[in-house]
């Protein structure tokens, strides 16, 4: 669901979130511009030229719900977070409609039901500005070039491979298996214990084993999965390290 809001790119300089009225006086929307409900809310407050410390909650709630309904008519899977905010707004609105008890009025400070929301909006807006600052910085950095690849790390060969690298290798092999012509050969299923024994034997004999090569030896998806689990298991239980010389390179299993 959230992918709707997460995946679209946004250019701070050329694009601005906007809801504009067209001839039929209905709301027309450029979709996917808001990073979240707080973002939308801030925009609505600005559009209404309202004071953030004195939000006209009824008007803003109406506008917000209008937007939500419109998202629905456009058949956009609505992120749950947008609905949570709608509920919060309605709750605040109803609290403000309630007459205050006379006893409360006597007391000096009556808490504004909007206060918590205002605090959240102000906090969020700071980070929104920080995001713009980061955007500006990365734009400047894109105009700077350095010699060679920054990512590779030749001076330190023992870069620990992360789970992502491990999964990448695994996926590479899986993809390769998909492309190959399938031949049905009856084969005995290999158990995790056997796989582990086999893997252990090889590492302890040769001290080193290429993960890519090891995975390549597997005959089917089932074996690959077993092999993958065996690798995870052996790293956990034995004194074996996963080593990756360079980013996206092969991963070596090495006995310590």
């Amino acid at each position, binding site marked *: 669901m*959230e*992918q709707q*809001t*997460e*995946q*679209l*790119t*946004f*250019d701070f300089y050329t694009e601005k979130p906007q809801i504009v009225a067209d001839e039929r006086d209905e709301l027309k929307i450029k979709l996917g*511009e808001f*990073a*979240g*409900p*707080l973002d939308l809310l801030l925009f609505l407050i600005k559009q209404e030229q309202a004071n*953030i410390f004195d939000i006209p909650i009824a008007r803003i709630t109406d506008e917000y719900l209008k937007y939500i309904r419109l998202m629905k008519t456009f058949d956009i899977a609505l*992120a*749950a*977070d947008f609905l949570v*905010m709608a509920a919060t707004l309605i709750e605040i609105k109803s609290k403000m409609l309630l007459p205050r008890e006379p006893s409360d009025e006597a007391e000096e400070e009556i808490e504004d039901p909007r206060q918590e929301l205002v605090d*959240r909006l*102000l*906090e*969020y*807006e*700071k*980070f*929104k*500005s*920080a*995001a*713009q*600052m*980061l*955007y500006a*910085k*990365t734009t*400047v*950095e*894109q*105009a*700077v*070039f*350095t*010699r*060679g*690849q*920054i*990512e*590779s*790390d*030749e*001076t330190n060969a023992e870069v620990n491979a992360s789970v*992502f690298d491990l999964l990448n290798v695994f996926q590479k092999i899986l993809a390769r298996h998909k492309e190959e012509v399938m031949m049905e050969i009856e084969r005995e299923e290999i158990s995790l214990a056997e796989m582990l024994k086999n893997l252990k034997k090889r590492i302890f004999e040769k001290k080193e084993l290429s993960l890519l090569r090891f995975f390549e030896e597997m005959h089917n998806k089932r074996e690959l999965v077993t092999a993958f689990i065996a690798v995870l298991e052996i790293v956990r239980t034995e004194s074996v390290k996963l080593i990756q010389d360079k980013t996206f390179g092969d991963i070596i299993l090495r006995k310590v």
Partner: protein
Amino acid sequence: MDSEEIEEKQPRSISEIISIIEALVFVADEPLTVKTIADVLEEDRETVEAAVEQLKQEYDERESGLQLREIAGGWQISTRTEFHEEIRKFLKTRPSAKLSLAALETLAVIAYKQPVTVPEILEIRGVQSASAIKTLLEKRLIVTKGHKETVGRPMQYGTSKDFLIQFGLKDLSELPSIEDFEDLVQ
């Protein structure tokens, strides 16, 4: 410091030290720290720091196409921003894909609040950030920083060295204070 011993072994002139540093920074893949340079040259930190500053000044003074700059706690030689159009024309490259608004916002929260957990990010952004976090992890801009010892032991995230490099920062303290944005807001 055993500087006496070193001076006896091979006294280098300051200009020689500067030249060697330039060569080292040139071949290095990553920003080179003063400590690394000092270790290779077997000179003390102060000497290296002074030499680096002088080298930087030399680049600036002759308006070189290159610049020596401090980034992610080290020194790096890079081109100057002014010439990016010519360089792109030559390399036939285009600026790489920008981060999405959601990813940038998430990154901002992580940069200022680190180490920070997913629920804490949700609290500030008011929206789930799972796919943004995935993107940032894949781009190696953030790293996991262990579990928080609280209910559910949620994973904590922080920015990486690559973050400093890609955003051209010496260190995290170079980021403007988050409170500075308050004035902008109001």
